């Protein structure tokens, strides 16, 4: 099986090349586009079955970089960790490809869309399968590129192109951290291969640029820099701002790249680098940032009115959970949440896409409502995903979130930062249940127009609309089989995936990091903590859903929200609706000074030094010298002949003088 490994990334690449270079009719184009990922999925399953005997499947495709000490082959490795990831990436990816056939059918960029999507699959699979951190970086940049291309897919609108640029540039900040982390790793291990690095102990001290550096300190910085990289890719504070804007892309892209796979690359990378993070002090920083991100994004999600923005902030929040799981040292909890989140968030995004499609492009939830009766099947699968996200006991989200809470809770007795983080995460879990309930109720259960928007400025517009029948858009666009089939599969996975995967996945992933570290009194404390956390999870779920129901499920509650939003809570609502003004703060504290600096440099270096002094200066000197020499060109034949003869005589005199001894010319002696 190992000789087939290279096909897993290459098949989607072939799809990209065919769709990208040839102009195919739509049916052929979508078959080519879907065949690659599905074939990859089949091979992934075959490979996955092979590694079940704890035998890593390895293939060195070709020698890639060979410079001095640095020797990096293009090597692919499937171990349990990457095995789980390729299943998620190709599995969910294939479903989303199939969904896209119907979703993008009327788009003029149909082939281009599939080409980009296939290129993304290729990059993501290289990221996951690469056996060295350099190869992972190639995939890392590749998915960043595809993310940029797909966010700006509808590039004719400036807003979309800007969102793409924002995502790309924000990721550059993280990528810089990632690169610094790679440099630190190289200094530390003199190797970039994951298996080789994991096998080496951190040296006591390292020579770095002529200085003696402690190995532990360097490991700390390596871990921190890599986490900054993960922050960029996986949308954590302070680099999360690009993800909500990334919703400008087509909805299947939001589902595949910005919910299910690419944004979890950071989590995967940290799980992959577990040998560096085990017992590291970086984890306190990670868990703090993760919990803050989870809580803050959850708060913002409560006040968003765009269906995709709600889900986007929810994704940021859930990514915080994943990082908290990684930070707890129980790496499998983070990866488990990656998998379950891929199921239910892909489902929710695809469901949201179906809703948007049905309403002819309407994304504002205040203009939705009552869709439950009109689209019952869609409502059912959406609710399944929402319940899994909210953490209904025994759904996927419940198990993975609970595992993270337990892990963080247990770590709280060892490291101080984990206590507050646990509290924040519990609160975020409650917020998750609350905003999910709000979303479902407003979109599906309300009569059209009955819901009054809570924000003051939006309420003005709604008075005109309430009595309009079908949202003023005419007939609903009912989702077809190609849309509903992937949704149904994902709904089943969201409901039962957690229960089925909980224990097996922990056991399965154990060979990757060995025995994870637990407090000494493991068994008893673990059971105790587990029971407590299950109780807490159930309570926050119940509280969140009930609060959501009380407020958004009844007319009285909605009136109360409206009064609250216009009265006492006006400031708070304003703050939440504007996302804590983080974008604006970045604009004024970082972007504006950068722009000013760039303008100054542009003027001094570009305008003055290069344009004026170097380029025009050279031209001016040539012009002036030429103008002066022009006067010697009289055009008179006599002058030319005189100069010619004078030159000839001078030459003759020179030669005669040089050879005066040999020739013995009398007049020179």
């Amino acid at each position, binding site marked *: 099986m190992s000789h087939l490994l290279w096909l897993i990334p290459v098949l989607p690449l072939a799809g990209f090349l065919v769709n990208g270079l040839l102009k195919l009719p739509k049916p052929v184009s979508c078959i080519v586009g879907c065949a690659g990922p599905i074939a990859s999925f089949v091979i992934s399953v075959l490979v996955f079955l092979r590694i079940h005997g704890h035998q890593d499947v390895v293939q060195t495709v070709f020698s890639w970089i060979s410079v001095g000490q640095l020797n990096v082959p293009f090597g692919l490795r499937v171990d349990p960790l990457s095995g789980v990831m390729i299943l998620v990436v190709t599995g969910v990816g294939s479903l989303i490809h199939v969904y896209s056939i119907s979703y993008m059918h009327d788009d003029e960029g149909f082939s281009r869309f599939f080409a980009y999507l296939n290129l993304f699959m290729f990059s993501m699979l290289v990221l996951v399968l690469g056996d060295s951190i350099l190869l992972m970086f190639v995939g890392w940049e590749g998915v960043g590129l595809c993310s940029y291309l797909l966010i700006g897919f509808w590039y004719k609108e400036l807003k979309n192109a800007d969102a793409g640029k924002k995502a790309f540039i924000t990721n550059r900040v993280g990528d810089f951290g990632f690169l610094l982390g790679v440099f630190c790793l190289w200094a530390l291990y003199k190797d970039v291969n994951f298996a080789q690095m994991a096998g080496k102990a951190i040296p006591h001290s390292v020579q770095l640029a002529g200085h003696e550096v402690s190995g532990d300190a360097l490991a700390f910085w390596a871990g921190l820099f890599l986490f900054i990289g993960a922050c960029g890719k996986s949308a954590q504070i302070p680099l999360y701002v690009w993800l909500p804007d990334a919703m400008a892309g087509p909805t299947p892209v939001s589902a595949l790249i910005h919910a299910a796979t690419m944004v979890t690359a950071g989590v995967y990378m940290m799980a992959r680098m577990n040998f560096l993070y085990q017992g590291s002090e970086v984890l306190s920083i990670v868990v703090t940032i993760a919990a803050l991100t989870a809580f803050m994004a959850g708060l913002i999600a409560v006040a968003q009115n765009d269906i995709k923005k709600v889900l986007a902030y929810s994704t940021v929040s859930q990514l915080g959970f994943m990082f908290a799981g990684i930070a707890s040292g129980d790496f499998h909890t983070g990866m488990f949440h990656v998998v379950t989140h891929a199921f239910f968030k892909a489902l929710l995004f695809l469901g949201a896409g179906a809703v948007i499609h049905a309403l002819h492009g309407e994304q504002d939830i205040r203009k939705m409502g009552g869709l439950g009766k009109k689209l019952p099947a869609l409502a059912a699968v959406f609710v399944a995903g929402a319940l899994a996200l909210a953490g209904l006991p025994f759904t996927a989200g419940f198990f993975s979130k609970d595992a993270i809470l337990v892990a963080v809770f247990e770590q709280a007795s060892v490291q101080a930062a984990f206590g507050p983080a646990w509290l924040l995460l519990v609160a975020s879990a409650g917020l998750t249940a609350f905003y999910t309930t709000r979303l479902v109720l407003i979109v599906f259960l309300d009569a059209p127009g009955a819901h009054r928007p809570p924000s003051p400025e939006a309420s003005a517009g709604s008075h005109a609309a309430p009595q309009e029948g079908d949202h003023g858009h005419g007939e609903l666009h009912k989702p077809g089989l190609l849309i509903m089939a992937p949704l149904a599969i994902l709904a089943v996975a969201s409901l039962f995936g957690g229960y089925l995967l909980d224990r097996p996945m922990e056991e399965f992933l154990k060979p990757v990091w060995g025995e994870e570290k637990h407090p000494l009194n493991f068994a008893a404390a673990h059971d105790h903590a587990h029971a407590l956390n299950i109780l807490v999870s159930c309570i926050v779920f119940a509280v969140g859903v009930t609060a959501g129901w009380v407020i958004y499920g009844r007319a009285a509650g909605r009136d109360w929200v409206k009064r609250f939003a216009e009265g006492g809570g006006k400031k708070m609502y304003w703050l939440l609706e504007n996302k804590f003004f983080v974008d604006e703060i970045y604009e004024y504290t970082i972007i504006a000074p950068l722009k000013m600096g760039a303008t100054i440099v542009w003027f001094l270096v570009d305008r003055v030094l290069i344009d004026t002094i170097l380029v025009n200066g050279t031209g001016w000197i040539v012009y002036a010298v030429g103008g002066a020499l022009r006067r*010697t060109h*009289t*055009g*008179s034949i*006599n002058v030319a*002949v005189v100069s010619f003869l004078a030159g000839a005589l001078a030459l003759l005199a020179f030669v005669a003088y040089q050879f005066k001894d040999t020739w013995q010319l009398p007049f020179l002696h």
Partner: protein
Amino acid sequence: MISHYLIVSAALFSIGAFGVLARRNLLIILMSVEIMLNGVNVALLAFARVHGNTNGHVFVLMVMGVAAAEVSVGLAILIAVFRNRKTVDTGDLKSMQG
């Protein structure tokens, strides 16, 4: 003995050079160039005699051939210039001035 020949040669060459420098009529300049060439020819033949071989003769035949070609081309240009400008005075032919 050779110095007599060389003096004649140098005299012919100098007369030709003076003509080229001093005169402004293109036709006269061309003729002066011919005189310069013949001055050189005399020197070449004298040296051939001194050395007792025919190398100088070969050069002279070569120079005469080139001179014939030069005169034919030069006179043709001269006629073309005269037809266009109605003058062969080098003082008036200054269109190459920078």
